[in-house]
């Protein structure tokens, strides 16, 4: 079954992924995604009834640390890469109102 990806789908996924595509890019994205999904669809040939989805390949479990403060103030180093900074804080365009 061939997937035909609509403009709306590309628009929607663009919102989820916070990507803005040009009209040409959108056209390309529709094609690429359609082809990939067609390709991925071959997984449907496999009967996976009763197979547990495997999210973690190793049987590592219960990895925890103790509740002990190990970090000091490293603000300066962490802010060093900020595109913009004010009063020891990161900045973003307004989110209020």
């Amino acid at each position, binding site marked *: 079954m061939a997937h035909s990806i609509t403009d709306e789908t590309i628009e929607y996924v663009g919102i989820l992924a916070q990507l803005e595509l040009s009209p040409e890019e959108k056209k390309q994205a529709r094609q690429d995604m359609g082809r990939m999904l067609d390709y*991925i669809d071959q997984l449907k040939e496999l009967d996976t009834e009763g197979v547990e989805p495997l999210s973690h390949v190793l049987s590592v479990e219960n990895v925890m640390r103790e509740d002990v403060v190990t970090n000091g103030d490293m603000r300066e180093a962490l802010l060093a890469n900020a595109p913009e900074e004010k009063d020891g804080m990161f900045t973003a365009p307004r989110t209020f109102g």
Partner: protein
Amino acid sequence: MKLTDMTAVELGTAIRERHVTAMEAVEAVFAVIQEREAQLHCFVTLDREGALRRAQEVQKQIEAGKLNGPLAGVPAGIKDNLCTRGMRTTCASRILENFVPSYTAQSVARLEQAGAVLIGKTNMDEFAMGSTTETSAWGPTKNPRNPAHVPGGSSGGSAAAVAAGECFMALGSDTGGSVRQPASFCGVVGMKPTYGTVSRYGLIAYGSSLDQVGPLCRDVRDCAALLEVIASHDPKDSTTVLRRDTDFTAALQDDVEGMRIGIPRDYFAEGLAADVRERVLAAAQVLRERGAVVEEFDLSLVEYAVPAYYTIAAAEASSNLERFDGIKYGYRARDCQDLHQMYKKTRSEGFGEEVKRRIMLGSFVLSSGYYDAYYLKALRVKALIRQAFDAAFADYDVILGPVAPTTAPLLGESLQDPLKMYLGDIYTIAVNLAGLPAISLPCGTDRHGLPVGLQLIGNRFEEKKLLRSAFAYEKAAGGFRNCREVD
């Protein structure tokens, strides 16, 4: 012997025995870089001054007897997705153009503790997404064996730098073959350890459940020595495993007598280049002659690994790359009044085409209404693939096959058709899905003189068997110099 023709372990020995200094080793690689880097473009960032300073420090410590490991004083390249404190780390992406981490990846820190000298950061596919190093925002790397061809990817810069003599060893990362395939294309040895063997702390994530850091080296001995250094149970990476068998160099025995080696028939089906098939089967014959029991078998599910992988990797990548938003670090688009406009412009301008393609796909397969049909389905197939390998390892110590269906393609050939490029990962990808260790080592060249890679796959935590078989093959084939000089 020319200094840059040495292996890392040979150089380390020469330094310890005072035949060479760490500074001379740095000068030697920078002489090669001077000569070849303009053409090959293996590195994104080089730090000659820093490397020389560091070499002096290391030399002093060696002379004071404080450093005596096999890799002390050896110049190394680091893939640009491993964070290095104070050294720009870009993932070959515009979005991290000026990112200078305040911390060092655990694997790199281990390498530094062992006395290695970092000379720079190697080029790669942007965020490790690609198989040719052509998706780098800083331009492609070229294959030292023939600069008209790609070096493979995504760790193409690391593989090419080692092959060209621009460093003695390098670290890469392997999510679906990104260490093994460029190693194969450039004629060096590359290894992907069992998931959880090397800490991912400081490795900028692509597909977190699949990513492993691995060595790219001149021969199997170097590979074992480097892996021994970087393997660690790291409290900062919850997915690392406490292993007591990481003395990998102890496994370097020229002995495969009675070792059971399986060749999956499905790896030699349609799509495999004739020259590659021939070389790989010849390598199997070499091992058989050394006493290994080599048999063909049906692995099954091979064709499903690629679609399952791209679903899972894209899904994880879409989430892992959300943090690149122009607020805390990296590129930020100018003149945006509105938050979402800033996000969108920053990310659209900061990420390259292939990265955006995978983010879009990943966001889609996780989105409401598709999660079960795509993402969970892929995780179920992943479970089946692991089962298929578990069954195979009940019968065999090692699985043998090609690394890639072809030798290195020409520059510009692969990006035209992404799906075709993805299919080139068919023999490497299942290894990541199943968390297995695998090694890629040179086994001759094709009719154009391009290297062919042999892949050996081991069961989880059985790197030693893998290294033993690889070492025995390398010995029989005449060692790395022989392989390199076939053309």
